[in-house]
């Protein structure tokens, strides 16, 4: 082995050692950056959507439907102080759904989304009005848009009694689609059995507790829009 080769090998060995030594701090820095991003996100959310507290709040085990893989949502039990008033209760649930997913991978709604308004009509129609970011920051795609709407519908369905159907507005307006694909001009059925034609499709039968595929959605199209 020539002297030059020995030098080259020595330099390579030193470079590898330096690489290994610097890898660990690099990982720590990445971790710190991730954590600080999460803290920033929470701080921003605390300003945009402060926690809702009502005199009738009682801490219960709520079921929040977050993503459980790329194509389905599943309930996660969370101890939450929830109001007896269904409107406030729904807002509290949606805020938790947006702000506190157990991990980034389980997030179904954009972090910047806020609930601008929530109303319940006498016939059990829930109207949820979200900020623009729900539409502008949800990834475009039938699957991803279904996942977002499904997490909202299933979370309300599992924790608020008496809701029959859901209408989603963006910034106070009815919109054509959530992010280019999923039709928001109609209503999404809550707490009702799917239509027989839909039930024959193995994947479109929504179970209230079991993990749901994105197509667990049940819609009702209105002819008066």
């Amino acid at each position, binding site marked *: 082995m020539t002297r030059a080769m020995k030098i080259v090998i020595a330099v390579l060995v030193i470079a590898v050692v330096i690489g290994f030594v610097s890898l660990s701090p690099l990982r720590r820095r990445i971790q710190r950056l991730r954590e600080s991003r999460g803290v920033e996100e929470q701080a921003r959310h605390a300003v945009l959507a402060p926690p809702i507290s009502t005199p009738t709040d009682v801490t219960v085990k709520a079921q929040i439907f977050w993503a459980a893989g*790329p*194509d389905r949502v599943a309930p996660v039990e969370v101890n939450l102080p929830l109001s007896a008033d269904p409107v406030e209760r729904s807002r509290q649930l949606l805020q938790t759904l947006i702000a506190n997913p157990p991990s980034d991978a389980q997030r179904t709604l954009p972090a910047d989304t806020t609930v601008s308004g929530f109303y319940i*009509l*006498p*016939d059990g*129609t829930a109207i949820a009005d979200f900020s623009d970011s729900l539409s502008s920051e949800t*990834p*475009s*795609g*039938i*699957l*991803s848009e*279904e*996942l977002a709407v499904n997490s909202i519908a299933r979370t309300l369905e599992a924790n608020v009694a008496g809701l029959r159907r859901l209408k989603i507005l963006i910034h106070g307006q009815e919109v*054509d*689609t959530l992010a*280019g*694909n*999923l*039709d928001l*001009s*109609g*209503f999404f*059925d809550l707490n009702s059995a*799917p*239509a027989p*034609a*839909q039930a*024959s*499709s*193995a*994947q*479109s039968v929504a179970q209230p507790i079991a993990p749901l*595929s*994105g*197509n667990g*959605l*049940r*819609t*009702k*199209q*209105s*002819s*008066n*829009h």
Partner: protein
Amino acid sequence: MPQQAPQPPAQPTPPPQPVQSEPVIVLDPAHGGTDTGARGENGLTEKDVVLQIARVVREQLAQKGYRVVLTRDDDSNPSYDDRAGIANGYREVIFISLHVSSTGTPGTVRAYFDQFSTPVTAQALPAGPPGGKQAPPAQPQSTLVAWQEAQRPYVDVSHHLADLIQLQLAQSFSGSPSASSAAPVRTLRSVTAPAVAIEISSVASPADALAGSAALVAAAIARGVSALRPGAK
């Protein structure tokens, strides 16, 4: 008086067979123009990928003898209604909307049919403010089909076609579901024909992998259409 030769017993006339004309396949590359659709970190956009795939699918289906029409063949973005209007201009037509998602397991493909349920009746509408006017009584059903509900009568056949196509897709794309999915896909809503949306996961996949999937998607569509209409190719 000459006797007439005995006539052979008359053969029963076969019942007229329905003439099964070839359906036109309208391929709808989703999005376009300023509406990019899904965007991948690799710089790919759904609008470009689906147009590329639609052109390959058109060629493959044309080779099998199908007449194929695209709702767009450039970077334009026809409205949802214009896309439906192209399909609704043909008597025998099948509408296939092509999508690429931004999520989902890469290499899987899903077929969707539109999802409707019972129309909202006047009785189901809110009662209105106390003291306010009552909702008017339900009007008699019109024979005219509401544009927003045009797909409703075709949901069952669309579901069947989506299942047939999904079955083929599941064989070609490992990990794909074996049954189609119901979803309120906006672009299907006003089509007066069997209509299916196909979404490939995902735009994050390498470009050549997405392009390579076009031939398999074309084969799945062709087999699905043939199975739906045995008289077709």
